[in-house]
């Protein structure tokens, strides 16, 4: 039952913002369903495949999905993610994370003000 509720919340969040929903699923699995961090992250990814597929299907039915753009951004991102997670072990640092956090905040302000 808890998992069903997590799914409902995550699904709404995911399609509303165009994100996978891991930001919601991972902490909820840890706090509400007593998952360990690794299990929560992995299980969240598995759920996201279904959630994102559902989102794409429902948005595509409304003509909102731009397939060429998804491929142009998504395909290099898959390669980039492999590079990023391999590099993570070597260059994980507080300064870098704080810089990234500042970048996200700047984009957030740009979207709010723009």
């Amino acid at each position, binding site marked *: 039952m808890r998992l069903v509720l997590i799914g409902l919340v995550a699904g709404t969040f995911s399609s509303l913002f165009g994100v996978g929903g891991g930001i919601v699923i991972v902490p909820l699995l840890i706090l509400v369903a007593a998952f360990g961090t690794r*299990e929560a992250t992995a299980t969240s990814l598995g759920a996201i495949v279904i959630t994102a597929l559902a989102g794409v299907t429902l948005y595509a039915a409304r003509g909102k999905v731009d397939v060429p753009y998804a491929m142009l951004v998504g395909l290099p991102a898959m390669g980039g993610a492999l590079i990023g997670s391999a590099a993570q072990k070597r260059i994980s640092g507080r300064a870098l994370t704080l810089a990234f956090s500042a970048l996200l905040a700047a984009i957030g302000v740009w979207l709010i003000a723009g």
Partner: protein
Amino acid sequence: MSTTTIVLALGLGLAAGVMSGLFGVGGGILFVPALVALGLGQVEASATSLLAVVPTAAVGTWRQARYGNLRVRPALLIGVASIVGVEIGVQVATSLPEDVLRRLFGVLLLAVATQLAWRARRRPRELP
């Protein structure tokens, strides 16, 4: 679509992927602003981002399953239950004015930025 746009899209995609791998955030949170920067509306950016999220999450799931971290039944249960929520989210996203949705997404980015900064602050000092 011009050559400049294509090169820019490829570059933004690569950068989004590297950052998501480096910092453990999902791709979508970076795809959406990248797509908005490329000129898509907020709803189109969300919808298109989700298509780019599918293969990324599938590859991640496959890797995690090999590590033995994936719990299949909870993942399926959450995923299937999420479909109802997805329909609600799509309804809300398509009925909200675009600029409201864009600002809400901006607030989400600020929240994630805060969470990351908090995590970095709490991380023990032995890391270089």
